[in-house]
Structures are given as C-alpha cells and as structure tokens.
C-alpha cells in the first residue's frame, strides 16, 4: 500500500487565522475561550470568531463580497486559501475534496439571515460553493459524522488515495456556534458553566468553539522531513445514540485497528491527542479505553481548553497541533485539566515540555456511538 503524507495545513480560530499563530498562543497557554453573550440572558463561555475581523480578512484575501458567503463558508474558504497555496501539489481531476462538518450553514434555518439563500442549509450547496471557488473537478464528499468527522475525513482520504482512486486530497472542517447548537447541548445539560476541564474531577461539560481547519494529503513526498499517516480505525459502540459505552468498546477497537495497521506497539507511542470534551461520561470512557489499550503511561492531553469543542473542525485542528508537536518535539499542556477525575490512571501533560516525539495517536468520539483513531509518524529521509 502507498505511503500517505500530510503536506500543508491551516488552523483558523479565535487564537489566530494561521497555524503558526495558533501554535504560538498554545505554547503560551492562551485560550480562545471567553465569556460571551450569545443567546438569551445568561452569558456563557465559548470560543467565538470575531465576525468583523473575519470579514475584514476575507475581503482582503478572498477579494470577494462578504455578503456572497455565509460565516462558515468564509472561514472554510480562508483556511483552504492558506492550505492550498502552501500545498506541494495543485488541484487536478485526481484531487479529492472532503468537507467535515456536523451542521454546516445551520444558522440559515433561522429566518433572520436574509442575504444567503435558504438552499445553502443543504450541505451539498455548501460543498458547491467551495468547489466552485477553487475550481475543484470532482464532487466533494461532505462527511457529517458527528464529532469524529474531522479525524474520519483524514482516514477516508488516506484509504481512497491508497486504493488509487485519487492522488491527493484537500480536507477542510468547520462548524459554527449557533443558537441551534448551543440550545441543543444546553437541553442535554452538556454545557459547562466554566471553561471545560478535560479529565478533571470537577468537570461538568463542554465549551463550544467556532473554527475551521484544513489539511493537504498526498501520496507523493518531496520533503526531507514529513508526517506519514500510518494507521487508522473506526468502530461503533453499538450502545446508545448520545452516551458513550461505559467500557469504551468502540474507541478501544478503533485504537486497536489503527495500532495493528501501523504495526505500532502501545509502548512506542510518544503522545496521544485525546478527544477530552470535559463531560463526565466522555472523559471517563476515553480513560478506560486508553487503559484497556495499555496506553495509560503515554503522555496525553485534551486541546479543547484552547479551542473549545469545535465539532466538525475539532479532529483536524487537534491533528494539526499534534503534527506541530512532532515537528517541534514539544508536548503542550492539557489546558483546563486540574485534579484528575477519572477512575483509571492517565499520564496527563501538566506543563508544556520538550520531548522527542516520533509517533502519535489522535482519537475522537461522537454522537451516534462513533469513534475514530489515527496513528501518525514523523519521517526523516
């Protein structure tokens, strides 16, 4: 099977509109989460992208009318402009476009938005906008698979390229913070009253975040140093549609599948980027799955303390931070984690520190009982 590599990438978040800015802020333990007045009377914590700043940058870089595109579209387009410009390949008819999003332009359902057609609530219409803007030749695949969408998109691209259906791919992920999403998670009692605290004793829910991120994936490598995607796996818990399995069965199987394919033993992993949403159930389930997979000693963090839970973008953003962890040989603090509150051991990263990082694991879990895991390896030629 062909080797598959990551080429360029971009994170567009409240911490900055390019990856370097985001990594710089993370290394200083800065968070994009702030107290906001989004809906209703009570202010709550969230990581929002400033609309005025977004429009300003979009007007300058996309050289487009800000009213032609919805907020999410502008975020995704800007992210892809950066990634595509730095990619080691250009778009051909052998290039795949994957868009990872849970709700797309869901804010359009609210009749107050008038300048964008209601038709754009259909995800394929969002896909058409992005395809047309960059001149992609193939129909985009929109992956709407709850919170694993971002990580799964990487696996889907790798699998299709390895089987020679495409030569390379661009992946973009993103989701908005909308009344729809906030009210929904609130109705599930899932939103924390403070910035989220992954794996902590007093964690009580998620903090929502708004971001876009993108990656270029290719089977051709021209660099001396690169990151290879060496294994992937996904598995359904087959237990409950909104709560994870108590013994982490689906996540455990996903990890085993990815480790087996990549021929990686648990001991040779240098770092795990966990899903770590900050809910009571998710973090406990993840900790159990990691222990079952004999990963309790591998340094692990949750990154949602920096970005919030960015839904469709989360898997891609957190993967990109993982890649930079490898490039910089740096483990970043698990922001928001304080006193550990899971029933099994975990080696949580307490302080940003240097470490030789060669092989990492990224995991994600989501509604519908889905789980996905990917192993990445730093290659030097």
């Amino acid at each position, binding site marked *: 099977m062909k080797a598959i590599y990551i080429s360029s990438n971009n994170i567009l978040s409240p911490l900055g509109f390019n990856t370097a800015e985001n990594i710089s802020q993370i290394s200083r333990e800065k968070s994009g989460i702030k107290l906001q007045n989004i809906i209703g009377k009570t202010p709550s914590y969230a990581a929002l992208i400033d609309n005025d700043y977004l429009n300003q940058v979009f007007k300058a870089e996309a050289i487009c009318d800000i009213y032609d595109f919805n907020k999410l579209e502008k975020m995704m387009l800007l992210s892809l402009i950066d990634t595509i410009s730095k990619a080691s390949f250009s778009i051909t008819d052998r290039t795949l476009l994957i868009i990872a999003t849970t709700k797309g332009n869901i804010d359009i359902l609210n009749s107050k938005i008038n300048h964008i057609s209601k038709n754009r609530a259909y995800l394929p219409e969002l896909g058409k906008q992005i395809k047309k803007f960059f001149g992609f030749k193939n129909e985009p695949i929109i992956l709407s698979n709850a919170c694993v969408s971002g990580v799964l998109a990487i696996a889907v691209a790798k699998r299709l390229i390895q089987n020679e259906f495409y030569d390379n791919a661009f992946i973009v992920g993103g989701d908005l913070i909308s009344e729809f999403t906030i009210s929904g998670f609130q*109705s*599930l*009692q899932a939103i924390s009253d403070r910035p989220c605290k992954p794996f902590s004793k007093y964690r009580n829910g998620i903090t929502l975040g708004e971001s876009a991120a993108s990656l270029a994936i290719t089977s051709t490598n021209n660099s001396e140093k690169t990151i290879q995607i060496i294994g992937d796996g996904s598995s359904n818990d087959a237990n*409950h549609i*909104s*709560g994870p399995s108590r013994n982490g069965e689906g996540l455990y199987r996903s990890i085993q599948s990815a480790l087996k394919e990549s021929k990686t033993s648990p001991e040779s992993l240098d770092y795990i980027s966990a899903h770590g949403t900050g809910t009571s159930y998710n973090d406990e389930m993840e900790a159990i799955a990691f222990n079952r997979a004999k990963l309790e000693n591998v340094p692990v963090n949750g990154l949602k303390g920096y970005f919030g839970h960015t839904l469709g973008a989360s898997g891609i953003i957190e993967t990109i931070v993982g890649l930079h962890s490898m490039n910089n040989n740096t483990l970043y603090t698990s922001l928001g984690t304080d006193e550990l509150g899971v029933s099994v051991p975990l080696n949580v990263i307490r302080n940003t520190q240097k470490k030789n990082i060669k092989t990492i694991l990224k995991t994600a879990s989501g509604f519908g009982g889905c789980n996905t895991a990917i192993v990445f390896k730093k290659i030097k030629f």
Partner: protein
Amino acid sequence: MDELKKELKRNIISQLNLEDIDVSDINDHDALFGDGLGLDSIDALELIVMLEKDYGIKLSDPSEGKNIFTSIELLSRYISKNRTK
C-alpha cells in the same frame, strides 16, 4: 390529584413517543425508569422540559430529576406542590 395523574400519563405517552401504551397501562406506583416503564436518560431530559413547559417548574439542579421522576405518584405530588402554571 387523580386528574393530574391522568394528565401526566397522557403527556408522558405523547411526549416520549410511547407507542402501544395506554393511560390504563401505567400504574401510579410503577417505576418510570429502569425495569418499570423503561425510560432512559434522554427521556429524563425531556421530562425536565415538560416540567417547565406545562407546569412552570424549573429544576435548579437537573440531577434532582432522579428523585422526582421515580413514579407517577411521586411526580404528581411534586408537581402539585411546586407548579406555577
């Protein structure tokens, strides 16, 4: 109180999509969760919404729900005492 219990049974059947269950099938003292009616965690959250929407009761701590939603008998007593609608 009997009228409230009947109303509660009707509301629960329609709100929670309990097909093929009649008001007469739900006994006042049957467990609503677990082995009785077999409601789950999402049903519990819907009941919290029902408490506020139909009876004006807002739970300050959602985990209180466990004690309130034990049976129709206990639920109707709680609502009689605390309803604002």
